């Protein structure tokens, strides 16, 4: 599959995180030393231990500790490492100014500046690596609307109807839009082939053709999109009798693998953050439809509006994706 996700290996992740944590602890140790013993610190780097210098070192110490704590709290985020890089620049600027002053040990200051520059290089390296890992991870995060990733869901429901009733309703793919919220329309091309139109955000839609690849009457239907479709989709449904006349168990498995680019994002947005929950709701609607002939509507669906009559019945129907 083209452009699915950028590969990254586990080693890169863990070595980057180790370096990041080390830098975090270094920040805290340096900051603590600067705050606790600023005059000794000043002498160590070759600057006079004047009140001004000591106070500056105390402020720098506080900054180091804050950066260290932030890095250790979120070692997966590059932003705090970049804050360290900024701090390093401040340190270097201060050391540079100190060079021009009286009563300084230039050798010691030079060593200190070299050390800061070295740490700064490490900071930049770690920040860039972390940003890269962050980016890749974000793309691999399952179900994320930002991600360019696939969706694979399995759900099961028991319906109080005969196996044959359920099978024949499902076998007519044109029924899908009645209970699958993301499917706008399905046209039957012939007995095997169908054209799917799925709803996408902002009034867009995605279209693909699918074929039934397996069909065992009263038992099992499997379908998948034709090769070269905008969306790589496959699904199956299995019907089996629940024990003791408890109806029929309906097991559904669906997979969407989006292509790279804009449509990939559209597919991810189709399902929002919780595709598992969405398919579960679809199956609940399937059950409602098969058992009662309709999808009961709430006056206060979700926590979106108060449970009081709507001004227009369509407000509720549109939200629920149910036609009159």
């Amino acid at each position, binding site marked *: 599959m083209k452009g699915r996700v950028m590969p990254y290996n586990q080693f890169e992740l863990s070595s980057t995180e180790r370096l990041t944590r080390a830098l975090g602890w270094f920040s805290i140790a340096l900051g603590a030393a600067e705050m606790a013993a600023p005059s000794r610190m000043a002498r160590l780097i070759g600057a006079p231990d004047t009140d001004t210098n000591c106070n500056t070192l105390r402020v720098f110490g506080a900054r180091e500790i804050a950066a260290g704590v932030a890095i250790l709290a979120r070692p997966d985020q590059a932003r705090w490492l970049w804050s360290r890089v900024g701090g390093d620049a401040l340190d270097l600027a201060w050391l540079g100014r100190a060079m021009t002053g009286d009563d300084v040990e230039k050798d010691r200051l030079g060593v200190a500046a070299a050390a800061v520059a070295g740490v700064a290089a490490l900071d930049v390296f770690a920040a860039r690596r972390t940003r890269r890992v962050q980016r890749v991870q974000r793309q691999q995060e399952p179900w994320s609307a930002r991600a360019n990733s696939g969706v694979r869901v399995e759900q099961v429901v*028991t319906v*109080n109807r005969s196996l044959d009733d359920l099978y024949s309703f499902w076998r007519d793919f044109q029924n899908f839009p009645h209970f699958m919220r993301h499917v706008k329309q399905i046209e039957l091309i012939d007995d095997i082939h169908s054209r799917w139109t799925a709803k996408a955000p902002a009034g867009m839609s995605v279209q693909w053709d699918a074929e039934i690849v397996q069909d065992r009457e009263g038992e099992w239907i499997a379908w998948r999109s034709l090769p070269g479709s905008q969306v790589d989709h496959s699904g199956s449904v299995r019907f089996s009798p629940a024990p003791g006349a*408890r*109806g029929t168990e309906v097991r559904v498995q669906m997979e969407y693998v989006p292509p790279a680019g804009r449509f990939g994002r559209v597919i991810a947005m189709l399902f929002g953050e919780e595709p598992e*929950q969405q398919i*579960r*709701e679809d199956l*609940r609607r399937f*059950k*409602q439809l098969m*058992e*009662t*002939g*309709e*999808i*009961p*509507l*709430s*006056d*206060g*669906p*979700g*926590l979106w*509006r*108060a*449970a*009081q*009559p*709507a*001004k*227009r*019945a369509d407000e*509720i*129907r549109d939200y*629920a994706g149910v036609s009159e």
Partner: protein
Amino acid sequence: MRATCWMGSRNIEVERVPDPKLLNASDAIVKITSTAICGSDLHLYNGFIPTMKRGDVMGHEFMGEVVEVGKGVQNLRVGDRVVVPFPIACGHCSQCDREMYSLCENTNPNAWMAEKLWGYSPCGIFGYSHMLGGYAGGQAEYARVPFADVNPLKVPDDLDDEQVLFLSDIFPTGYMAAEACGIQPGDTIAVFGCGPVGQFAIKSAYMLGAERVIAIDRFPYRLRMARERAGAETINYEECDIFEALEEMTGGRGPDHCIDAVGLEGHAPGIHGAYDKMKTAMMLETDRPVALRQAILACRSGGTVSVAGVYGGFIDKFPMGAIVNRSLTIKSGQTHVQRYMRPLLRRIQNGEIDPSFVITHRVNLSDAAVAYEMFAKKQDDCMKVVMRP
């Protein structure tokens, strides 16, 4: 129309809201003639039930006249006079097939919320939070009633509203609690809580053959009604130790079965009551199960503790040891009202009971806010408020 709306904890207002419309083919619109405030509405009022939203229409005990039916409705006609049960059932799922109507699998469109809290979802309920369906309630001028072929009960014209209104909830609820005890001749039943459900539990326990019923509360007017109207012996828990009193009254055996008609906002004197008030205030438990604990400890070994009171979340210091070691049975559930409406209507028609005895206040719907406050604070000996739009 005017409707009683939840505007936040301890804040009820009668607001103008749009008239209900048919949303599903199985819906009916009922013009409400009488509606009541339920003790369980006070849990919403006091903010104990999550997923309420400002503006939610309250009320799940109501009756009225059918003014519109959806095109799928066959058993009801415009003009029919009906009592509407509080649990909404579809009549087709396997729970409905088993007459476990309050467990209907199809009537909670917000089932996912209930599933997060309770594992699986019960049925939808009128005016009782979004996680139980987000249905507008019946303390209003009109209500939309889903699955109108299954739920509303047509009532004969010779019975007035006040005689049949409580078939919507509290009479069946008290009855189911008593039925769950499996009462045998000679049994003594202890009923914790003498609110309206407690009163009907007492009456029902006698109907089902109890020898004695002992009722427990702290408000003299409620105990008086339990004695004088429902025929129970009574204990005021603020004046004595309940366990000792019940032990003494039952020859040291304990009552054969206990009914908790209190629910999650129980009170108890002393450290026991203070403990739960503190825990709920600190959000360390959601419900105050003081009556339930007492009922479990007081019950005769091998007996049943039947829980009619509403609990919503989690309780603390639950005496499981007593249940296991003394072979107690706990029975509970939201009432399967549809199962009891017809048989209990017959008892009313036969003159075995006139449920209107619990009514103490009759007000106009416009006075709902005052009525809620009065009922919550047990002012003016308030037992049951019926409102007319």
